[in-house]
């Protein structure tokens, strides 16, 4: 039930994110307006419609997080896969452990701070995408490595070898179909993690740059106690929490209780 609701909600958010939204249009007559029929979530300092910005920001955040998750899972599949097969295992596992031992968020902040800050919105999106994609491979790579290792010594792989199956078909027909669900699960749990990471970077001004909206830079409005008397400013926070929660709720959980 909760799972169906979560799936429904995510689909609704995805569809809503595709609605036309003039995120950059300024209504100079009514800056800082409260909710009204014309502006359901009011307008910001520059007179831009908050709802339009939220809709477009959802599109930017989800797209960016998904693309970055695809990138890091592709890296994880490649590195974890070859390590699992016993090639350069020590080096790859060592590198993954090194990455995992660093506090991820601080690493993100540090690397981002080293890169140019005064850049165009599209460049900022690209930098955030590459940053998340390149720094997040370690955890999924370890999972993929463990899975490939387990699969490659499994009975059915041994049996396939005993039938004379050539090496590449062994990988393509026997290993891949069994490693794929594990990789897809990693992809699915990486997306909400990256949504949160992008929001954190954005809120600190290190993510997607204005005027392009994202959940991260929409949260900047909450800085300095702007929330008092303006509860509608919480809309991006609620949406963020609901989407991240829904991603988690979609994953099927094993019941370990006895």
């Amino acid at each position, binding site marked *: 039930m909760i799972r169906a609701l979560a799936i429904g909600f995510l689909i609704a958010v995805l569809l809503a994110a595709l609605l036309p939204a003039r995120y950059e249009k300024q209504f100079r007559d009514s800056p800082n307006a409260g909710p009204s029929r014309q502006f359901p979530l009011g307008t910001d300092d520059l007179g831009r419609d908050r709802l339009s910005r939220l809709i477009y920001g959802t599109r930017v955040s989800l797209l960016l997080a998904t693309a970055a998750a695809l990138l890091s899972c592709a890296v994880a599949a490649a590195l974890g896969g070859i390590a699992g097969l016993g090639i350069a295992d020590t080096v790859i596992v060592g590198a993954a452990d090194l990455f995992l031992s660093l506090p991820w968020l601080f690493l993100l902040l540090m690397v981002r701070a080293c890169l140019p800050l005064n850049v165009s919105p599209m460049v900022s999106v690209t930098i955030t995408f590459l940053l998340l994609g390149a720094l997040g491979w370690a955890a999924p790579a370890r999972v993929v490595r463990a899975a490939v290792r387990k699969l490659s010594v499994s009975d059915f792989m041994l049996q396939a070898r005993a039938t004379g199956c*050539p090496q590449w078909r062994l990988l393509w027909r026997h290993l891949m179909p*069994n490693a794929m669900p594990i990789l897809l699960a990693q992809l699915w749990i990486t997306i909400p993690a990256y949504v949160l990471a992008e929001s954190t970077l954005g809120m600190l001004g290190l993510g997607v740059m204005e005027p392009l909206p994202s959940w991260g830079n929409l949260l900047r409005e909450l800085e300095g106690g702007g929330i008092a008397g303006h509860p509608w400013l919480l809309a991006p926070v609620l949406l963020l929490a609901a989407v991240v929660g829904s991603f988690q709720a979609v994953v099927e959980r094993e019941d370990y209780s006895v």
Partner: protein
Amino acid sequence: MTRSLLQLRISVEYARKRVLNDVSLEVAEGEILGLVGRSGEGKSTIALSILGLLALKGGRCEGEILYRDWDLLKLHPREMRRLRGKDIGLVPQSPLAALNPNVRLGSQLKEAWRAHERGEPDWKPLLESVSLPAEESFLRQYPRNLSVGLAQRFLIAMAVLHNPSLLIADEATSALDTITQAEILGLFRRLNQSRGIAILYISHDLASVASLCHRVAILHQGEIVECNSVDEVFLNPQHPYTKQLIDAIPQLPTVGASAMESGLARR
């Protein structure tokens, strides 16, 4: 004397620990040789050594394994791969674990065929020869839909797909209930008689060995302690370990002796 098909003399180490010490075995063309020993004595190690797959388990094999005119230990990996499945088939211990859980039976059969041949043959005669349903719907199933007995028949079908000269049955009946076990033993006997396939039947179960094999080799502490015809080993065991194994065969409390006799007579 029939021609020798397989002749081996090997020593095997795992991480510098020797598990097989100068073990010699010989299987003649069309013969069923039983290899008996307790769990962990290195029976499966011999099977993996013959198939050239010991390195997967981190083992190192020395000596020679003569199969027809080739020394398998000196064969190029590519040639060894061509031999596996085509000339030497393997029937494993755990049938359900030995089938790829995410691939349909038909595709697995096709995969095993394509490892050595092109195209796709008619599966019907093959499936019928191992008493499996020959319908299309059977081949569309996944391994999880099979019972252990059906899965083992399917694996035997896969192992004899290319009409090999030697079949290695590594504890192939150990995981089966007694009725299914008897059926599978009957199937081995039939394949041996109709196609002349030699079988290296590895087992810890002496009773099944007695009902199937022509000769028995007893493996104990990394060495072959006795190798002789089934009658000789069962009626006149030489080594104390062999006697211990025979004494350990479970018997029904009252009808034990007569059941044992009729079992031997049936063979």
